[in-house]
């Protein structure tokens, strides 16, 4: 049986509202699989992808997660963009004791032995971004955030880190998903007179904010953990609406390193029409290589064997944006965090970067998957019970 192909399920939104940010993820996985197969597969076994379009619809994740695990009997699944989709399929992965990679920046806190998260989490993005912004622009911060888990939990992180760094929150506003009109929000921001705005906007409708803020001449520096790196707003809107946007990313296609350049070249060779190669594409690509390494070292696709390898604490790959290592306690990864600064003409420069930033919070808060598997999502205001 070991001679057959290794099957990877791929559940990503190739249509619907999230397609903009996620089609590239599928392409990245295809690219990595092709490379690996060209180089002889994983331990001699070829990689085979089983792809379904989840149509930005949670129920499709439920249907297809069961399908890949039960019918297609895949060895691992790469799945999900929105956190809601991840929560929709997680019970099913747990039920069948499967292994799912969530290759997406998110609000953090998932402590689940059946999950490996390769996206960046708030402590990695905000502990770097906010001190820089406060030092550069001043202490008064205004947050606008999507009014759901990602936005609310990220905003909580912002609040905490701003306070730790001597800053002040002068305002905080939550925007329901799907809202596209921002006149009142823009006025509220002007009234609060912040030194910079933290924008944690999600979805295509909300990104209209930038154009409208620019048109009203709001002209404030912006900081974000989610924009630029996911939805490439600087490519879609006319300059200068994203002028002075600072985003901490673990990858964007503008990164000027040999690894990045090589990745972009390979990607564009295979997918010449790709509008943008975002950080989730990079994470998905690296995740395939992480999985390769795990299987090769475990000499098996068995989850228990793989987790024994993870427990050794030295599973690392060099991704397009830098080295990524799996943290055994949380099964999240460390990242090189790049500070991307969007200039007035919407080109991107990188004033600084931080190496080997750890996803420390879960582990410190009490999640330790090497010991127990609560299969829960925690937040700073709702930490694991052992710590409460």
């Amino acid at each position, binding site marked *: 049986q070991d001679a057959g192909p290794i099957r990877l399920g791929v559940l990503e939104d190739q*249509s619907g509202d999230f*397609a903009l940010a996620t089609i590239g993820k599928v392409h990245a996985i295809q690219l990595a699989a092709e490379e690996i197969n060209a180089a002889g597969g994983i331990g001699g076994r070829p990689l085979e992808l089983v792809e379904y379009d989840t149509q930005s619809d949670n129920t499709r994740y439920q249907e297809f997660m069961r399908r890949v695990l039960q019918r297609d009997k895949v060895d691992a699944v790469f799945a999900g963009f929105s956190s809601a989709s991840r929560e929709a399929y997680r019970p099913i992965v747990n039920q069948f004791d499967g292994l799912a990679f969530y290759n997406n920046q998110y609000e953090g806190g998932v402590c689940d032995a059946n999950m490996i998260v390769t996206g960046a989490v708030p402590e990695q993005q905000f502990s770097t971004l906010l001190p820089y912004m406060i030092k550069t622009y001043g202490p008064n911060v205004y947050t606008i955030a999507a009014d759901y888990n990602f936005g609310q939990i990220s905003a909580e992180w912002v609040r905490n880190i701003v306070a730790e760094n001597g800053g002040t929150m002068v305002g905080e*506003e939550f925007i329901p998903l799907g809202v*596209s009109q921002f*006149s*009142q929000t823009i006025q509220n921001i002007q009234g609060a007179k912040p030194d910079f705005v933290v924008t944690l906007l999600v979805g*295509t409708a909300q990104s209209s904010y930038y*154009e*409208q803020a620019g048109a009203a001449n709001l002209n404030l520096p912006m900081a974000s953990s989610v924009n630029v790196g996911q939805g490439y707003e600087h490519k879609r809107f006319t300059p200068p609406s994203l002028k002075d946007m600072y985003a901490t990313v673990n990858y964007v296609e503008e990164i000027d390193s040999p690894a990045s350049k090589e990745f972009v070249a390979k990607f564009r060779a295979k997918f010449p029409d790709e509008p943008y190669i975002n950080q989730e594409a990079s994470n998905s690509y690296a995740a395939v290589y992480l999985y390769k390494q795990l299987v090769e070292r475990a000499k098996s696709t068995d989850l228990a064997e793989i987790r024994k390898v993870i427990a050794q604490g030295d599973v690392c790959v060099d991704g397009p944006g830098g080295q990524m290592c799996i943290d055994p306690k949380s099964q999240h990864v460390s990242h090189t965090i790049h500070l991307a600064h969007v200039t007035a003409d919407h080109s991107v420069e990188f004033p600084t970067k931080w190496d080997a930033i750890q996803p420390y919070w879960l582990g410190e808060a009490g999640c330790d998957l090497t010991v127990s598997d609560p299969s829960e999502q925690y937040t700073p205001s709702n930490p694991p019970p052992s710590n409460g």
Partner: protein
Amino acid sequence: MDIFNLIFSFLYQFGDAFAFLVLSACGLAVIFGMMGVINLAHGEFIMCGAYVSTSAAHAGLPLPLAIVAGAVAAGIAGMIVEWVVIRPLYQRPLDTIVATWGISMIVTQGTLIVLGPSLQGVGTPFGSFTMGGYSYSVYRVILMIAAVGTLALLWLMFTRTRFGLLSRATIQVPHVAEAMGVNTNLIYSLTFGLGAGLAGLAGGLYAPTMTLVPTMGASFMVEAFVTVVVGGADIFLGTAPAAAVLAVIKAALTGWQGQLAGQIGLLIAVIIVIRILPRGISGKILKERA
């Protein structure tokens, strides 16, 4: 903030909400109010207008002309859709819900396949102005003027032209209008085309201010439906006052408690208004007048 600026800023926010509600709703109001067709593809006509006007602007057409081009393109698309899909369904208005839902799926996904996940915007023209320490976008004021202008033009069209008369007759008792010598098929086509064109106009007008993606129409839908239904069957007696009432509620709640309150408040206002006026605002006005 002194009192004058306070009033100005509220008026600006009110006007902004009003313009969005009116422009979102007009096309839907024509198609629903006149034809009884519940057009779930309304958002896709908006998207069509936005895409065409943006592409036209990229191609060098001046923005006002590009917006008109968007409206015209959506109008033509509407006439085609009417001819192929809607016309056989006039006797079964509820089935148009499913048909237009299907069209919406085809258009949204078709656009994604053909044109990719997004379109680069053109940027908002005319810059900004400052008032009492706050800066505002000039273009939003243009949108308010466009909303009022659209209402006025529609009013003239339906009350002062023969088309208005005949289209209302056709919608009310088609077989008799036909027997009176009215080319009802043409009327249907023009009416639907007008509604789609108005949706396209909304798309063209808002295109510079928004993300251009195949699903963008969805962000107009709730507001559009709510306005039309609160307004009731008559476009002028209904849509305009409904938009005004809802805009006050929305602007006040958003300013006071934030966007979520604005959104939920809007929906709850709808429930309350309909409970008080079970046939919408225009139903009430018409009854009083008769």
